[in-house]
């Protein structure tokens, strides 16, 4: 088993965090995993992204040229990475920030969801968009189980942050349900 995915968006949208959570979940399921943030020159900028590689084997490169998946939370993110996604790979896009027309790839599995709105609707907070998208991504890619994800969340939301945990889980589940609903409905 080998899966690599890029999570990308603006700084502050929490793409590094959901990468972290996914990596944690993969570890709990006894996979090999690497999490690699992007880094640039010593200059401040808005973009943020990370690459997570999950494998049943020891992982070589923590960087990927042709990811199996891309989770894009912003326009620049989509524009920068969509062409890299492997044929037949997975593309999860936050249409709260990205117009669906900007997706040019036809040879991948796409899933568009207005994650920020969903987040607000479901949790009363825009900030859980990343979890919604993560839920969708996980359900579709099945690189880890949803249960594993929830367990992983527990590692991150401890002490003062604990009150966020239920919200996070809710958002995650919603994202997942969104996908399953679609899957069931569409076929």
């Amino acid at each position: 088993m080998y899966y690599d995915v890029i999570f990308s968006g603006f700084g502050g949208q929490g793409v590094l965090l959901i990468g972290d959570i996914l990596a944690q979940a993969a570890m709990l399921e006894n996979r090999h995993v690497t999490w690699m943030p992007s880094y640039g020159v010593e200059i401040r900028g808005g973009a943020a992204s990370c690459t997570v590689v999950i494998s049943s084997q020891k992982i070589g490169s923590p960087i990927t040229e042709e990811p199996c998946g891309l989770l894009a939370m912003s326009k620049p993110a989509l524009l920068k990475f969509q062409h890299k996604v492997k044929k037949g790979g997975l593309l999860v896009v936050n249409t709260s920030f990205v117009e669906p027309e900007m997706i040019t790839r036809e040879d991948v599995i796409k899933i568009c969801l207005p994650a920020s709105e969903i987040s607000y609707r479901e949790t009363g907070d825009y900030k859980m968009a990343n979890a919604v998208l993560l839920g969708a991504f996980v359900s579709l890619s099945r690189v880890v189980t949803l249960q594993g994800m929830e367990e992983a969340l527990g590692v991150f939301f401890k002490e003062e942050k604990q009150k966020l945990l239920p919200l996070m889980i809710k958002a995650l589940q919603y994202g997942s349900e969104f996908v399953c609903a679609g899957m069931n409905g569409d076929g």
Partner: protein
Amino acid sequence: MSERKILRGCVALAEGAIAAGCRFYFGYPITPQNDIPEYLSARLPQVEGVFIQAESEIASINMLLGAAAAGARAMTSSSGPGISLMQEGLSYMAGSELPGLVVNITRIGPGLGGIAASQGDYRQATRGGGHGDYHLIVLAPNSVQEMYDLTIKAFYLADKYRNPAMILSDAILGQMKEPLSLDPPPLVLPEKPWALTGARGRKAQLIKSLYLADGEMEQHNWHLHEKYRRLEREEVLVETDLEEKMEVLLVAFGSCSRMVHSAVELARSRGIRVGFLRPVTVYPFPRQALREVSREVGKVLVVEMNTGQMWDDVRLSLYPGCRAGLLARPGGGIPAPGQILAEIENLVKAGDGIDESVYQA
């Protein structure tokens, strides 16, 4: 059972230092290694350690010299330009036979450079950037686990040989997270009768690098040299992943070896018989191991994230008749597994006797 956690490479390294009993950190900010001082500034006070943000890298290395001379396990960390500024101090530490750890999370050079991953400081690390006949003990991790393990090892070797040690890493390894087992070996801090702690109960003693009597400096140089030879005999660490009847052997170190190993897997999946050798200690360099392995394979491909620095060491080690090509990507370029694979295929096709040429990206 050992604890498993996902940590950033820099944090794993910092935890490794603490596991090794290091309680003194002196350093000056520089990207991409700031996670180390930032983490330790919070962590060391928790274990009654001391964190000092020094006024410069020169102050850092000399505080380290002082702390080491006082007998403590202590460290500093920096990157490119900061490491260059430490060269005088490193030469003094080597000359005075003081242990201590220096971490280089490299950046691009020369000059101000960029903070992307690069292996351009290999020569500086292994050939001695400071003046005089000396070497650092240089360990080059290629995983977060090794950022932890080799840090512990580095402290151990530094003390054993009374010589400064260096972790040669880069932005990829410093920033990435991987699961690791925090499974420190039992901590046994060595006796240091040579340390200066005040002359209570013994004669006053000295730590110095200058010897004035006739012939004493020559003797001292040979004494140091003998230590380096002993390191070469006893402390080489190397990782190999070999096959029968290899068509080509790949040699790489540090983060780059990760991409290379991916390429090796790719090549094997295409039926090419490829071997893999990774120096874990880049000083002492695994000359003997490489010599033996290369005896069985005519072609070697060195892959480096610089313009070809370890290449020299490889060529000095090869079994006579064996030749080494180079795939080099300096300045933040990362040799992708695909690119490496293409080179492997070229090499296999090329027939006998490759030329020692440079393959640029």
